[in-house]
């Protein structure tokens, strides 16, 4: 397996399963700033449609102006929400953070969550994941529906936009249709970063790992794989990359981050974590890591003060940010609008 050339990507979850959710912005701001001080790529914030705590995308929008470089990746549920709203909210997170937005695509499969909306019954994972893939697809098209230079402000003709560079997406999926174009001009990253957790546990017992992997393989920029050992992580990565090739994606596929539960009882632990990450990365089983801290308030300072310096010493983590957008941190190119490409090709 070829060694990745980019140093490992590193992300951290701001929430933890056993910790009650907080409603105050100061809590999240402090954690995100600490992660930014540690020059991590991004923070994630989980969410569940019927879950406790504030809306994750709202929280990360709230802290965006209080941070400068760190990527902001909320979980967004696609099952009982409108794809158009999902797309515009994530695009707007990219605007207010000046190019630091991503989103973790999630679904809702429980009857309890369906009852909160009352529109339809809960559906099996394979079905809602197939729909989630369509939501990710249409979100990308809506982000592309304004070409980058659609706004022209041409005083001579009185035209604010060049409507040849605005596009109806005319998307018809199995569960919904969207006419388009977006109301939000193309966001700074072109397309905010799409993340899929391929071994997620959110939403109850997961009976749809294959459906998750298919969406990740087809649509994700970053896939998160929960793994306890490097062999499991490596196997999942190989599987994902093979599936991505089957979808016709370019070599490189999604970046695969091993998502690890982390509990830092002591600064010894923090050094051990650096060694473990270095070891897994050297084996080529992951493109980086997503750390799920047992208690972020306790563990994140230990991570930043203990683990981060050791990773930097080994050349496994930047000393300062070179880029300003999440795509730049991750080494992902800024995609061109599919509509701009089609128009160019037709010329």
């Amino acid at each position, binding site marked *: 397996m070829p060694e990745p050339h980019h140093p490992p990507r590193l992300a951290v979850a701001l929430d933890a399963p056993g910790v009650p*959710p907080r*409603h*105050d*912005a100061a809590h999240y701001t402090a954690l995100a700033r600490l992660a930014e001080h540690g020059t991590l790529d991004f923070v994630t914030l989980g969410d569940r*449609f*019927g*879950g*406790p*705590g*504030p*809306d994750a*995308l*709202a*929280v990360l*929008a*709230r*802290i*965006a*102006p*209080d941070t400068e470089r760190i990527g902001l990746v909320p979980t967004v549920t696609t099952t*009982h*929400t*409108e*794809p*158009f*709203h999902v797309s*515009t*909210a994530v*695009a*707007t*997170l990219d*605007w*207010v953070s*000046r190019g630091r937005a991503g989103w973790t695509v999630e679904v809702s499969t429980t009857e*309890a*969550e369906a*009852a*909160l*909306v*009352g*529109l339809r019954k809960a559906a099996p994972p394979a079905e809602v994941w197939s729909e989630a893939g369509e939501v990710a697809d249409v979100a990308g098209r809506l982000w592309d529906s*304004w070409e980058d230079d659609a706004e022209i*402000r041409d005083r001579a*003709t*009185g*035209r*604010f*936009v*060049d*409507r040849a560079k*605005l596009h109806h997406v005319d998307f018809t999926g199995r*569960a*919904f*249709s*969207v*006419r388009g*174009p977006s*109301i*939000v*001009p193309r966001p700074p990253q072109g397309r905010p970063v799409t993340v899929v957790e391929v071994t997620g546990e959110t939403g109850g017992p997961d009976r749809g790992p294959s459906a998750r992997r298919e969406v990740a393989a087809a649509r994700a920029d970053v896939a998160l794989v929960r793994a306890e050992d490097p062999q499991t992580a490596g196997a999942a990565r190989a599987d994902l990359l093979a599936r991505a090739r089957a979808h016709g994606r370019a070599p490189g596929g999604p970046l695969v981050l091993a998502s690890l539960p982390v509990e830092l009882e002591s600064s010894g632990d923090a050094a051990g974590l650096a060694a473990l990450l270095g070891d897994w990365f050297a084996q080529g089983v992951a493109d980086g890591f997503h750390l799920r801290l047992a208690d972020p308030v306790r563990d994140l300072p230990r991570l930043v003060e203990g683990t981060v310096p050791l990773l930097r010493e080994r050349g496994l983590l930047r000393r300062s940010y070179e880029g300003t957008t999440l795509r730049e941190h991750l080494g992902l190119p800024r995609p061109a609008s599919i509509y701009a490409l089609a128009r160019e090709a037709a010329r």
Partner: protein
Amino acid sequence: MSPDPRPRKQIHLAAHFPGVNNTTVWADPPTLRPTTAPAGGTSPGSALGSQIDFASFVHLARTAERGRFDFFFLAEGLRLREHKGRIHDLDVLGRPETLTVLNALAAVTERLGLAGTVSATFNEPYELARRFASLDHLSGGRAAWNIVTTSDAFTGENFRRGGYLDHADRYTRAAEFLATAHALWDSGPAGGPPRRVDHRGRHFAVRGEFGVARSPQGHPVVIQAGDSAEGREFAASAADVIFTRHSGPEAGRAFYADVKRRLPAYGRRPEDLKIMPGVTFVLGDTLAEAQERAVEIRRQQVSPQTALLTLEQVWGVDLSSYDPDGPLPDIDPDPHGELAQGRVRIADPQAVADRWRALSRAKGLSIRETVIETTGRQSFVGTPDSVAREMDHFVQSDAADGFILVPHLTPEGLDPFVERVVPLLQERGVHRTEYTGTTLRSHLGLPDPARPARKD
């Protein structure tokens, strides 16, 4: 003249981020720049602000907070307007998603209320109640929701729910939507487990628990815009603020009296609902200068292309061969013609056309001049002193409780008002010099809603 025995009413002020229509002057000729440049100066052309960059929103919100305004207001768009089947390209197009921008603005302001327009047609009560409760928490009690409904299938083409909403159902759905949101907000955990909500109505069925703790304001402030009898009744029953278009003194007083007299039937006091017309303003060092500037702004807002397009919206037929500087067409409107989508439909095109033609003949106006004359005008035009006096009189004579100001430039259009008019309102004792509370409800003088006692 005997002194009025009543205490002087305080003027409530809000700032509307310039909308995506031809009120916004995007071409920004230098003559339209604010007369008072912001401290530190601006480089030429800097008022050519982006309508999408977050910096524009920060500038306007901070300016409003500097002026001790009650709240910042965002409209909503869910589909780009079209004309003759093509995307409209003459006005500012494109805007960010409302709640995400407001959450971000909460980080760069401290006291300013944050009001967002969100349709009750293409969202569900549980989801939206959760998003507004989140904003209320994350802003420390500054959230407001301008509840609107959408009836056109054109907008519906972007949504799962699809097309349409019967016009007659708009307010029953909005009322049930709001009642459901209230039930959810009241059920959130506040030092105890959440209460179960079980709502089964005509439009919604919501069963389960609301996971967001009771928010600082209990219920975010509710704003309603709408002028029909049903709209006024809905506002009287459930809204905290009405956003009206009645910016003339006579129409304003009639509207004010009509809405306020509806309140007792709902056990509410007149001061429980604030009436705030959306208004524009133009300032000058002299009245003549302000009037001249107002005319020039109107000319910028109604370009020759925009004049023809406005005419086509009334006539319902292609008029592109007409000269905008020539006379109005003598053909009659097509009553079934529908060229514009995503705009409010004109109820009786023939009556509008007759009125416009009569005006054009009487005054010898061209197409463009007629459109300028008939489609909106500046509400307050004058010197800072005359505008402050006029606004004060408007409020003290019960034509309004305050104003939602709509500047014509982004993002610096509010600057001259805050720098030149606000101090005069403060001198008159009708506008706060400092915030006294931290929540939007406290700015508006509205009581916090009581949390209903547990029934179980």
